[in-house]
């Protein structure tokens, strides 16, 4: 059991969840995740650790509303108990002084990239952060990201920020502008990560992505999370979640993420029927 300390909506469809989990807070590193179950009948779902406070014993994640589990999480209040909150899982991100690093994030990845950018900055890198949002009112954590970035570039389709072009295009032009980019880290929806990896492939700039296949236990016991990297099967929860985006079998990942498409709709309908009747 873990206590919810705070749950609030940051922008439409994106919520923050802060949980009392002192052991997780004591141990976690950038790039790791937790597995959460909202209630006894719930599903175990992974969420990236976006921030933590070892002194307070608290861990923060940002999640996007997509289906039943995230709907349920969005109804939590401070003081509620979570039957499962386990972590920190996965391998931490590779943090070194690479030189110049581009951190690209979209949707929940705006938050998920934050601790990585912070650690990269601390390790002495020049950090260029690229953020993608569908509309300017969906941008959050601007202050936090500014503090850890040498440059923050935001692309919103309504062009109230720096540009309105999809961020992988911006990444492409940035690689040309900059004398040298040593590494790219991209987190967000699968499509964004895929496009970022494709954008850097011609120049051969190493691009780490944080893969988000469906998971169950998160400890390497089930193989639900298998992805193919360099033609070899890997378990994302223990071998990842970070992988070199140029080695990933993306079509397989897209297909596997859609394994339960019809069931997810059924589940959401059942949940709403139960909630509103």
């Amino acid at each position, binding site marked *: 059991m873990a206590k919810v300390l705070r749950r609030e909506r940051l922008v439409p469809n994106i919520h923050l969840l802060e949980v009392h989990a002192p052991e997780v807070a004591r141990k976690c590193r950038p790039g790791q995740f937790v597995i959460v179950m909202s209630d006894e*009948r719930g599903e175990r779902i992974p969420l990236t650790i976006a921030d933590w406070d070892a002194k307070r014993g608290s861990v923060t994640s940002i999640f996007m509303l997509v289906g039943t*589990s995230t709907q349920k999480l969005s109804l939590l209040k401070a003081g509620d108990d979570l039957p499962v909150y*386990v*972590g920190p899982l996965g391998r931490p991100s590779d943090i070194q002084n690479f030189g110049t690093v581009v951190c690209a994030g979209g949707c929940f990845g705006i938050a998920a990239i934050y601790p990585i950018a912070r650690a990269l900055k601390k390790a002495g890198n020049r950090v260029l952060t690229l953020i993608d949002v569908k509309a300017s009112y969906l941008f959050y954590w601007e202050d936090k990201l500014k503090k850890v970035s040498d440059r923050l570039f935001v692309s919103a389709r309504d062009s109230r920020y720096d540009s309105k072009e999809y961020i992988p295009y911006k990444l492409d032009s940035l690689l040309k502008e900059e004398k040298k980019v040593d590494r790219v880290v991209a987190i967000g929806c699968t499509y964004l990560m895929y496009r970022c990896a494709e954008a850097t492939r011609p120049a051969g700039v190493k691009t780490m992505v944080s893969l988000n296949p469906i998971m169950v236990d998160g*400890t*390497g016991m*089930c193989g639900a999370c298998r992805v193919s990297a360099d033609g070899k099967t890997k378990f994302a929860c223990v071998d990842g979640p970070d992988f070199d985006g140029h080695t990933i079998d993306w079509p397989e990942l897209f297909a596997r993420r859609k394994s*339960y498409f019809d069931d997810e709709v059924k589940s959401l309908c059942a949940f709403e029927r139960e909630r509103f009747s």
Partner: protein
Amino acid sequence: MTEKLEISAELKERLKAGYDKEWRKELRKSLPVKERMKIPRQKMPEREPEKRNRDFGEVNKGLDVEAAVLEARRCWDCANPGCVSGCPVSIDIPSFIKLIEKRDLVASIRKIKETNSLPAICGRVCPQETQCEIVCNLRKATGVPVAIGNLERFISDFERWEGQVFLPEIPPSTGSRVAVIGAGPAGLTVAGELAKKGHRVTIFEALHIAGGVLVYGIPEFRLPKAILKAEVDYLQKLGVELRMSFVVGKTATLEDLKKDGYDAFFIGTGAGLPNFMRIPGENLVGVYSANEYLTRVNLMRAYEFPFYDTPVVRGKRAAVIGGGNVAMDSVRTAKRLGAELAAIIYRRSRQEMPAREEEVKHAEEEGIEFHLLTTPLRYFGDDKGRVKAMECLRMELGEPDSSGRRKPVPIPGSEFITEVDLVVVAIGQSPNPLMAQTTPELRVGKWGNLEVDWKTMATGIPGVFAGGDIVRGGATVILAMGDGRLAAAEMDRYLKNGQR
């Protein structure tokens, strides 16, 4: 097949003490062996195959008292009982059986619990036909052994129904703290034994329900969760603390726990790493490891989806690869979830199938198809990446190999393709690597198993012991418990010697 075990001096003494009791002598005399041999083996009442293969209710209904007493009468109460040499935890089998015959049921369950803390589970999942029953003297004489397993199940169920679960007296606290890592049968056994000795025990478990394979792997229709829960509740009554959702190696390392003040450790993290065949198409949607398939259904209750949130693919044509208990559990689960065709694909012949005899029999009754001497080559997907067919190859038995088993060899040109929309790969699990990766001092064997001194279950690190599937690879519940008992005795010695 389990080998005949050495009968220890301690067990010999225990057996003799029971055998020489006056009431035992009288009971032996009360019915001549000839009469005893006329009693037929009492059948385990089962639910009808056509009904039970649609739900998750338990298949076996258990013996009633009269049947149990009759079955107990079949036992000769031998002076040199063969049965005990097949039991990995040295249960005084004749004593508990004769106590049933005497209708002293409370004494009977206490007798079992002297050496086996989880009899309700063992009575359901142990392969008795290759352990105690195969060496029963009655079997040697007539071919039909005493139904020791069914009696064990009967007597433990009796205890639960009566609600008079017996709590031993716990000695004053020794002040030592023990960390048990993993809440499978090995860990649960260690926890129970050490709590009874007065040590403060905490179990750290990665998942959110205790039981290991017993809760995430073995289905409800074979081992109802309520039984496991009763056993875990019992441990808590003994004072054992449970820390769920705690992955040792991630949430804290063994080193961290040492700093937190734990004096001794038991690693019982099991063989949780699923093996795949590495053939084309294995990552298609609808191809599962048995671990994932069974975890979704049992631990996450996907059979009650959408009331429970976790989904699972419900195939119409299901193929399960393998021939062990895991494969039987998977294929019978697929049938229960609506598969019209649910088939076992196994590369050797029926004799070599490692599954318990009863599971194979139940599977056959439930309409499971068996494709023996067959192996998959590849899976084919549709345009959405979902499995739609598989290609298989037929085998025949060739020359015996070094182990004496006839090795299956492919029949050239026997490839065939069949439609499937659900595949479960149940070809075995390897030891979980997490502990070894985060505790470099642990010695790791060829198969990823932890190496221990078999006499003490000690790893190379002082105060750190291990047992169960993490040292044996995929084995059995009773062997895991046997390791647990041995380790607990050694840990108690270690703690009392003040080696802290």
